[in-house]
């Protein structure tokens, strides 16, 4: 059957033939996907913004992104907003519509995306897909979260809700506890050492100290991490990302249009989104996240590149051990090599494969619904040569966002298009 041709006898096809027709029809659509680029980015500082409202944060990021894009805002046709838990944390629902309204975008569709800590990665992907498919030309992606106005106890319990609540909380599983289980197993299985894990925190604090939008500005030593108090042994305080507020936004459009509108457009060349395990009870291994493996495979395949082609990475270091596991799951290092790689400086800003030059979640901070776009914000600056901790001449960047206890992951690969 010829691709895309609707057969005359469509009503006489049996189920199998109809599926084949549909498959071919969709494959043709995939081939027709348009290239998509980012033409403007904006962010709030990442901090504890206790005196501000979440809608104020998403408005600031959105306004800055539109200004950076230099586009008439009446051209924006849709808004996707990543947010995990504004109802539970600050008593505010409908944040997508509120943000669209506050930005004066008219009556365009505004949609909230939720995938726990990967909510903003999904907002980017939906923006990308709808432009690629030709549904919209100009879309704004936003991510926002406000967490500091609640007590640590409330935040811990809301975050724990990202796991399957049937059984996971009965025995006192917390998010740090989950990564404590992962860290212990990674140490046992691969001989990863306490010092190697601490090097992630040292590196990311060092990077964050010189990133103007990062929340934490203090340097730390390996001994400082090792000797900080236990949160979930073997995980210590400085293995954990801080509770943070912030919002990030970006404007996307077809790459053809982007080259006319913008001096330095950054193209989204690969996008992946997959689910993994939604409860700890489903995990066959504690040293890999299937959601990351699948999302990465999709993104690499779409981009037609391999892990060794990537020049700079922003990945989901909600805890130090997560950076090591993610770097292995993304194929950047062999299993068990993630610890030695960070210890030997290979992932420093001036190393062979810089990881989290922004400071990552550990130092920039982790407003969970904003993080996926904060990672892409950093990569856009890196590819344009405008980052605070500039990596030398990167051509390809990779952003990895992970939600829940491995429930959701998105991976995006970005390329210079100038």
């Amino acid at each position, binding site marked *: 059957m010829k691709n895309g041709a609707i057969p005359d006898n469509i009503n006489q096809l049996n189920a199998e033939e109809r599926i084949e027709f549909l498959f071919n029809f969709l494959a043709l659509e995939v081939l027709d996907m348009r290239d998509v680029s980012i033409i403007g980015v904006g962010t709030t500082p990442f901090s504890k913004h206790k005196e501000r409202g979440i809608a104020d944060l998403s408005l600031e990021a959105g306004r800055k992104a539109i200004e950076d894009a230099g586009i008439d805002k009446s051209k924006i046709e849709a808004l996707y907003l990543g947010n995990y838990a504004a109802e539970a944390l600050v008593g505010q629902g409908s944040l997508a519509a509120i943000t669209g309204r506050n930005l004066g975008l008219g009556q365009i569709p505004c949609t909230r995306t939720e995938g726990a800590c990967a909510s903003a990665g999904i907002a980017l992907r939906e923006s990308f897909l709808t432009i690629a498919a030709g549904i919209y030309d100009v879309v704004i992606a936003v991510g926002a979260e406000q967490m500091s106005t609640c007590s640590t106890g409330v935040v*811990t319990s809301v975050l724990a809700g990202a796991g399957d609540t049937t059984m996971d*909380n*009965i*025995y*006192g599983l917390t998010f740090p*506890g989950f990564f404590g*289980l992962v860290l212990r197993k990674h140490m046992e299985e691969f001989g990863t050492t306490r010092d190697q894990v601490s090097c992630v925190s040292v590196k990311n604090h060092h990077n964050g100290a010189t990133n103007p939008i990062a929340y934490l500005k203090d340097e730390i030593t390996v001994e400082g991490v090792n000797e900080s108090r236990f949160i979930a*042994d073997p995980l210590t305080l400085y293995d954990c990302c801080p509770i943070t507020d912030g919002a990030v936004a970006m404007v996307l459009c077809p790459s053809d249009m982007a080259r006319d509108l913008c001096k330095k457009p950054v193209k989204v060349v690969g996008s992946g989104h997959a689910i993994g395990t939604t409860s700890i009870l489903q995990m066959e291994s504690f040293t890999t996240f299937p959601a990351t493996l699948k999302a990465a495979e999709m993104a690499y395949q779409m981009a037609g590149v391999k892990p060794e082609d990537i020049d700079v990475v922003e990945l989901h270091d909600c805890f130090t051990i997560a950076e090591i596991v993610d770097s292995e799951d993304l194929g950047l290092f062999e299993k068990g090599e993630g610890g030695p790689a960070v210890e030997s400086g290979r992932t420093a800003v001036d190393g062979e494969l810089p990881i989290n030059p922004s400071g990552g979640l550990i130092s920039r901070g982790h407003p969970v619904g904003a993080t996926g776009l904060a990672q892409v914000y950093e990569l856009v600056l890196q590819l344009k040569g405008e980052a605070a901790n500039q990596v030398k001449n990167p051509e390809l960047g990779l952003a990895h966002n992970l939600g829940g206890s491995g429930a959701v992951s998105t991976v995006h690969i970005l390329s210079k298009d100038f």
Partner: protein
Amino acid sequence: MSGYQKPIPQIDEESKPFWEACKRHELYMQKCRDCGTLRYYPRALCGNCLSSDTEWVKCSGRGEIYTFTVTYQNRGAGFRDELPYVLAYIELEEGVRMMSNVVECEPEKVSIGMPVEVVFEDINDEIALPRFKPLPE
């Protein structure tokens, strides 16, 4: 027993036989009659083949620690009074894994691979919660 402050498991149709067995201080798991897969936590359908044809089988209650963490920070009601506590992932002899706590043992003596056996804590009139303690040498 009325002072139990931690979250209490919700008993539903699927999990009722499990909790009834726990109340008798016995550990039962669901087994798929079609593909033989054991499953925990109780569900209406087999996660492997989606069959609803299920039988209940008794487990030995013995297993070993797959991985664990000692939690020092949890301000949730009930937990904050028991810090630090050991949260562990247990692999039962039958091959099923459960998350639970390791009790009757100093946290610093717990290790991966350590043999453990189930012990039940009666938390109210309906529910006894399976936890694990080191298996005597």
